[in-house]
């Protein structure tokens, strides 16, 4: 019997500073993963945290991590060459097979862009297999935009629109050089020509952002069966036992984290528990 609780040791080979609180860690190995799956990342002497994979399976594993808790803050103090523990990959990914030959609308907020980076890379590698692909991305401030350099690269093969939703009075002070869109990510939907035929939507971001995005998409005539989202929970075991991530009797770690919205709507839970869907 394989003991899936024991992490494998891995070396950090490169660290990319994305924003003041977010770094991308690149490891010394490839992981046979699907876009949308996650890893359990262990910092020795601290503990473990579930982190979604932000690299394409064909390249070395990369995890984009925001420093928010004990483990992630400890991770941010590590340097290139340091050893961490990895378990995974876990869960089910984005349904890329269904999207082949179709249009794809990707809507993300904040760190929610990370689990969709492998999807965008997959589109880049096999551009002919997808129809129109649009990425709408919302960040709080320009400073907090992830993958700044790559966003420019991505514009060469997909439509990319970025907005910041920092609307306080001191906007000029916080965002001095920003000339782009301002407002929550759903405002980009009005400014974008979205094909309604043969279109799928992948959504990932904070609960409140996903709630309003899904409402908005459905109001525009998007069928919930065509919308997928990635739920966030604190998956402790990653394998469907510990119960920490259970929603409506489903294990987010094993049955998800990517779920179809029409499926979510049939779950016997109140909307707040399913990340505020509708």
């Amino acid at each position, binding site marked *: *019997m*394989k*003991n*899936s*609780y*024991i*992490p494998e*040791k891995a070396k950090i080979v490169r660290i990319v500073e994305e924003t003041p609180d977010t770094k991308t860690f690149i490891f010394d190995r490839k992981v046979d993963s699907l876009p949308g799956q996650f890893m359990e990342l262990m910092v*020795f*002497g*601290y*503990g*473990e*945290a579930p982190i979604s994979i932000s690299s394409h399976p064909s390249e070395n594993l990369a995890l984009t991590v*925001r420093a*928010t*808790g004990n483990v*992630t803050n400890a991770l941010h103090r590590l340097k290139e060459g340091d*050893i961490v*523990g990895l378990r995974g990959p876990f869960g089910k990914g984005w349904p890329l097979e269904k999207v082949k030959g179709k249009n794809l609308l990707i809507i993300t907020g904040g760190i929610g862009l990370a689990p969709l980076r492998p999807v965008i890379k997959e589109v880049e590698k096999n551009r002919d297999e997808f129809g129109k692909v649009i990425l709408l991305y919302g960040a709080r401030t320009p400073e907090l935009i992830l993958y700044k350099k790559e966003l420019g690269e991505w514009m060469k093969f997909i439509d990319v629109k970025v907005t910041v939703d920092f609307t306080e009075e001191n906007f000029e002070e916080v965002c001095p050089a920003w000339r782009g869109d301002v407002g929550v990510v759903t405002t980009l939907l009005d400014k974008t020509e979205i094909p309604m035929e043969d279109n799928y939507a992948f959504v990932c971001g*904070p*609960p409140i952002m996903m709630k309003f995005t899904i409402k908005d998409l459905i109001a525009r005539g998007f069928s919930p069966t065509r919308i997928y989202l990635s739920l*966030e*929970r*604190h998956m*402790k*075991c990653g*394998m*469907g*036992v*510990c*119960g*920490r991530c*259970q*929603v*409506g*009797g489903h*294990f987010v770690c*094993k049955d998800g984290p990517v779920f179809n919205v029409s499926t979510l709507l049939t779950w*016997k*839970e*109140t909307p*707040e*528990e399913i*990340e505020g869907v509708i």
Partner: protein
Amino acid sequence: MPEDSLSKRYGAKILPKEEVINLLQKIYDSYDEIYANTGERYEKIECRDDLGKVKLRNPRPYTSAKKIFFLPTQELFGYRKSNGDWEIEDYLEKKRIAILGMCACDVRGLQRLDLYFKECEDPYYWERRNNSFIVGSTCLNSLESCFCNNFGGLSNEDLQYDLWITDIGRYYLIEVGSEEGMKFVEGLEDASAEHFNAKERIIREIEAEMGPVYSKEKIVRAFSLKTGDILWRELKERCLACGKCNFVCPSCHCFTIYDDISLDGNEGKRIRKWDSCHLWTFAVVAGRHNFREDLESRVRYRIYDKFYYPYERYGVFQCVGCGRCYDVCSADIDLREVLRRLVE
């Protein structure tokens, strides 16, 4: 489970009461760890003389047998820094375990717990659970809080066991449920229909003492319609969110994982510990967002996860009707009352 019950496949024996201690001693000698129903709990038997403590006719003990296979605190592995690298030591142990005098509800509870631990191949559970030797026994009286008659009752027809002992007066009826069990009863006299009739009568009489039985279909239907029922708000007002019900429940499987680290940070242990879905911290994620901040959602979740969700996923209820959660509840929350409110 095959159509014919286990005892029909492997046969059944009768044993004069005074000889049962020999049987228990033989089992004691064959296993690494022995636990016995001593009336209060499933207690670890450390020496042969303590086998006299085994109660083969008692109602269920106050705590379940869950703790024997799914340890309340399990050290998973340890790690230590050496020369800039980390060494990992797996604490996994293989144990051959026997339990004497398990009640039907606890054997059933264990089979329900198995379902969760089958979601992945959890070695810390299965290295204890595989090859375990289960000696069940038929309760000769029930407690006020028992309502197992809703979920299979005292019958062992749907259960997996090695031996099943029923006190039928001057003899014990010993049903055999496995090849392994056969080894311990060789040479004993075969049981007859008369002995089985005695057992059936005992079961009928005890189950008749318990409350009403609701059909599976009725329960499932009620739960499918009542996520917004006022009952959940009432339970929220009463529940103290202490989590005792989770700990005594034979099928509650949730745990947390954390690291216990030495002061200098050069050594640590990964530990898993029973957790409770009633605690405020249960569904907190990074950034302090709490998906189950409201107690109502936590109270409702546990009850749905005993009846509706496992029915959807596995086709069975996780509740086995042992009534322990009611016994320990400081707020007197009674699942029988919950079922009655929802179903009727």
